[in-house]
Structures are given as structure tokens and as C-alpha cells.
């Protein structure tokens, strides 16, 4: 890497840190309106969504985007606003009666092609979309965001086996997992042992990248196309449920967060400082 390239990469990484911070700030504001919501998911996955929606990865209106854990809608909304696909002011309606920006995404949800409020179903839908891409002879890429907790559902592994076996009949399929070690009853590791996650997916015939999910450069590198290998790709993005923010009390339930005024002020101050 030349000095100039290194400087560009450093600049780009700094840009993405700002984008992710703005998304986290949007998420805090969305959740603050009602005082509760799926904030942890937005904090853990901010770099993942920033990479997909601002990193030149997902070609909106062309590629397919599947959001399997529909509770991550808050991250989608924040990213869509950053990408100019959603009016920033509409974010204020998050989770309110009558909004289309529902806390758990539905068929009314904008921007995503497929969402699953009932977890574990998104990968199958993504495989179906990828089969259709191949049948139509199109060059669309199918992206799917999954969570680690939903890998407790057997359907994920049914889909994993099918995708690997039928790789020659599918368009390009790329999965990003937000491995934030969080589910309703606590850390995933305390509920069920999913590890070794990377080895499991390799054993199922997938290409695997195991990366720091808060490192945009690593995420972008992992998603770079390898034209010689069209087999399905999974990027295991290791993240922290609170996005490594200092302001979070360690005891807080990460799946569904109650946000009091004090915590909101602390989070906002930390994020605004990062953006200053």
C-alpha cells in the first residue's frame, strides 16, 4: 500500500466512524421518543449497515436486501436516512401508532426487499431471491443481514445446506451476521453454544470471513467480490451489543432497552463528542 493509499484508507475509515456515530445518534433519538426500543441492535450493527448502505456495497433498487431479524429495523431506518432513501424527519415516527417505521419491520417497511419478524426465516427467503436472480440471468447480488441468536433456529441450517448444494443455480449470495452475543434471555453464549461459528459455516460449504464488526475496512474487504468463486459467502461480524459505547451500564438488557433521560443524555453526549 502506498502512502497515498494509506492516507485514503485512513480518511475513509474516519468517514465511516462518523457515519456510524450519526446512525447511533439517530437510533438514540428514535428510542428516546417512547423511552424504549431495540437500541442495542442499532448500536451493535451500525458499522455493518453503514458499510452496506454507504460503502458502495448495496446497489439500491438493483441488489436485493434481506433483513432477517426484523427487530433491526431501527438500524435500517438510520442507515436509509444516511443514504438519502428516507426522510430524516420520518425517523421521529419510529415505533409510533400508524407509522410505517414499525419497531419490528413488516411488509410495510421501506427499503428492504424482505424482512422476518419471526426469526430464522430470512436466509431461506434470500436463497429464493438468489435462485430467481439466476433463473432471470441477472447480475443482482442478494445481501442478507442475520443475527447470531437466530442461528438457534434449524431453518437457518436447512437454508445453509441448500445454498451450498445448489450454488451453481443461484445468483451471488452474501450474508452478514451481527454476532453481538445478545438474545432475549441474555448472552447467546449463556443460552446455547453456537461456536465454533466460522467452522460450522465452513463445514456447511460456505466461504467464511470472521471479522471485527466495528471495523468498516475489515467489513468492506470481506465483502469484496471474488469473481472466481460464486459460492455463498458469510461474513461473521463480531460486535458488541452496545457498540463499545462507554455510556452503557453493563447490567442493561441489550435486546430491548429502556432508555431513561440520564442514559439518553450520556449516550448523546458521547456520540456528539465523537462527531465534534
Amino acid at each position, binding site marked *: 500500500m502506498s502512502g497515498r493509499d494509506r492516507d485514503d484508507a485512513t480518511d475513509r475509515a474516519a468517514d465511516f466512524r462518523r457515519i456510524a456515530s450519526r446512525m447511533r445518534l439517530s437510533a438514540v433519538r428514535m428510542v428516546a421518543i417512547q423511552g424504549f426500543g431495540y437500541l442495542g441492535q442499532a448500536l451493535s450493527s451500525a458499522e455493518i449497515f453503514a458499510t452496506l448502505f454507504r460503502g458502495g456495497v448495496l446497489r439500491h433498487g438493483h441488489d436485493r436486501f434481506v433483513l432477517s431479524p426484523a427487530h433491526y429495523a431501527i438500524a435500517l431506518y438510520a442507515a436509509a436516512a444516511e443514504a438519502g432513501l428516507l426522510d430524516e424527519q420520518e425517523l421521529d415516527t419510529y415505533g409510533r401508532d400508524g407509522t410505517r417505521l414499525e419497531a419490528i419491520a413488516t411488509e410495510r417497511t421501506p427499503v428492504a426487499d424482505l424482512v422476518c419478524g419471526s426469526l430464522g*426465516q430470512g436466509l*431461506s427467503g434470500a*436463497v*429464493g431471491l438468489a435462485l430467481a436472480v439466476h*433463473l432471470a440471468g441477472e447480475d443482482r447480488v442478494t445481501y442478507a443481514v442475520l443475527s447470531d441468536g437466530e442461528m438457534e433456529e434449524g431453518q437457518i441450517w*436447512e*437454508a445453509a445446506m441448500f445454498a451450498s448444494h445448489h450454488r451453481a443455480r443461484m445468483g451471488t449470495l452474501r450474508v452478514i451476521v451481527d454476532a453481538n452475543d445478545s438474545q432475549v434471555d441474555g448472552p447467546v453464549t449463556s443460552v446455547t453454544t453456537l461456536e465454533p461459528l466460522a467452522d460450522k459455516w465452513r463445514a456447511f460449504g460456505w466461504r467464511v470471513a470472521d471479522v471485527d464488526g466495528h471495523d468498516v475496512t475489515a467489513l468492506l474487504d470481506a465483502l469484496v467480490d471474488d469473481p472466481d468463486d460464486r459460492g455463498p459467502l458469510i461474513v461473521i461480524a463480531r460486535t458488541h451489543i452496545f457498540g463499545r459505547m462507554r455510556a452503557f451500564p453493563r447490567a442493561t438488557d441489550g435486546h430491548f432497552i429502556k432508555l431513561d433521560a440520564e442514559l439518553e443524555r450520556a449516550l448523546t453526549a458521547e456520540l456528539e463528542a465523537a462527531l465534534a
Partner: protein
Amino acid sequence: MREPPYRTVLKPYGEALVALARTRPEVVCLGADLTRQTETDLFRDALPERFFNAGMAEANLIGMAGGLARAGHVVFVNTFGVFCTRRCYDQIAMSVAYPELDVKLVGFMPGLSSPGGPSHQAIDDVALMRALPNMTVVDPADAAEVTQAVAAIADRPGPVYLRLKRGEQPVIFPENHRLDLDRAQVLIGGERADACLVAAGMMIPAALAAARVLEAQDLAVTVLNVPVVKPLDTATIVDAVRHSRMVVTAENHSIVGGLGSAVAEALSEAGVPVPLRRVGVRDRFAESGSREYLFARYGLGTQDVIDAAWHGLAIERAPPRAPVVPPVPGAYAPV
């Protein structure tokens, strides 16, 4: 109407699906390790690029069907009725029914038509599918209806559940019979009836045979064929029952949640005050056995329809006996 034993034809569904797909490039065919059993070996061999075998993985099967349909395909999903409905109910609800996708679920071996015991007998598939918003539920009675159903459900936007007898399909209706997804049909009947028999699918032969027996007792009988359990043609059913002294529903399914329930709901809401009797599996799991044995043992015979009408009409003398139709190889007769 033809008379039993009815001649049969093989694989009318499989042939109709290939014929449809040859004219409709958006049609794709999915299965789950039951290719020959669901007559889709014909599709696999004719149009292999549009055939996908998901293996024994029904949850993923339904999810992929949703994805393909979302991209514009008309997706026929083929497996046994039990695996198609019970095993992946949430997937059907969320990946197919809620988004109103063009997924046509085809479930074989309805009710007690399978010798395979409770694991293979879909006695609740109509109830399950009927409970889902946006779902159309079709229970055809003969080979001509099966053939016509394939194009008809492809033309109907949104999700459909089609339950199909496996193997030989009887030819019951005359040449000019036309399946109408929006209408129930009066097969037998005049202005007024003593008993109105409302039947679907594999209970049509028993309803027709029971009608002949009751007519021989100087009773006037109406027989309605209801190939579409949802949305129910309430108007035709209410009109026929209003002009009858009592009504019998007959279905190769549990009496809970299927045709009998649907008809009871419709008549109650319309305020039709006639006695109703439901012929079907009486809220129990069955066992392994031949169709003849199971239909007789679990209350799906011609005699059960006769008895239901007889008791509903409160006739005191013993009910007449159903004729015994001797089995003819390759032919189909009601039990």
C-alpha cells in the same frame, strides 16, 4: 353424473402442471424429497431448470418459495399435506400468506386417504390453512377438477392451498363439468329438499351415493359440491339450505375447523334455523389402514352420510343401508 365404481386416471395434476409451465415461464416447481409421489417427476424431467428439490427441509422450502414468488415467480410447492401445513405453519403465515405471494401449496394425501397413520394423515390441513388470512383453500373431487384447478389457482393472485388425493383420480363428473373457484355447485337437487348434503373432495362419491339411497326412500335431496372451502360461496350454500329441512356436511377431514365448521358459521350468521350434522373425523387421530377400512371405521362412509341425514330429519324407523359397491381394480368407489 356418472355412477360408481368410477374409472380413474393417473397423474392428472403432474401433467397439468407441466402443461401450465410450458405456457407460463414464470412457473417454478419446488418439492421436498417426494418427487414421484407428488407427480412432479413429470415436471423435473420436462423442465429441470425450473425444478428445485429442497430435500427434507420444509421450513426452508416455504421460505425459498416466498423468495422466488417475491421476485415474480408463480411457485408450486409439492409435498404431503401434513408436512406442507403442520410442519411449517409459521413459515407459511409469515413468508407466504401475510405478504400475499403467488405460492401454490399442494398437499397430497388428504384426511384418511393415506395408509400411513396419524403422521401422514392430513386431518387438520384445511382448518390450518383456512385460519390464515389471504389463503384460498381448494379440495377438488375428481380428475377433471384437479386438471382445471392447476390453471385456475395459477390465475388466482396470492397464496392457495390445494389438497390432492394421491394416485388414481376418479372421473366422477360429466364431460362438461367446469371447476369454478368462486362458486359451489348444485350436483343434485330441485326447489326444495328434505336433506341438503354439502360435501367436498373425496366425500363427493359418498354424498352422491347417500343421495340415491335417500331418494329411494322418497326423500328430496340436494347435493352441493364445495371445491373451495375458503373463500366459501356462502350465498349458494345458504340459499340451498334455506330450502331444506336439514343439512349434512361431509368432509375427509376433522369436523373441527374444516368444511363443516365453515358451513356452520355461514348458516349461523345468516340465521338459517335448520338442524346441522357434520360427517368427518370426529376430533381424534386415526391409525394405519386401507382407505376402505379407515373411511368405514372413522365415520367417512356413505352409511355415515345416510345416518346423519336420517337422524337429522328425526325419522324414527331404522335408516336404510348403503349399497355395497364391490371393488374393481383400477376403479374408485365410495366406502
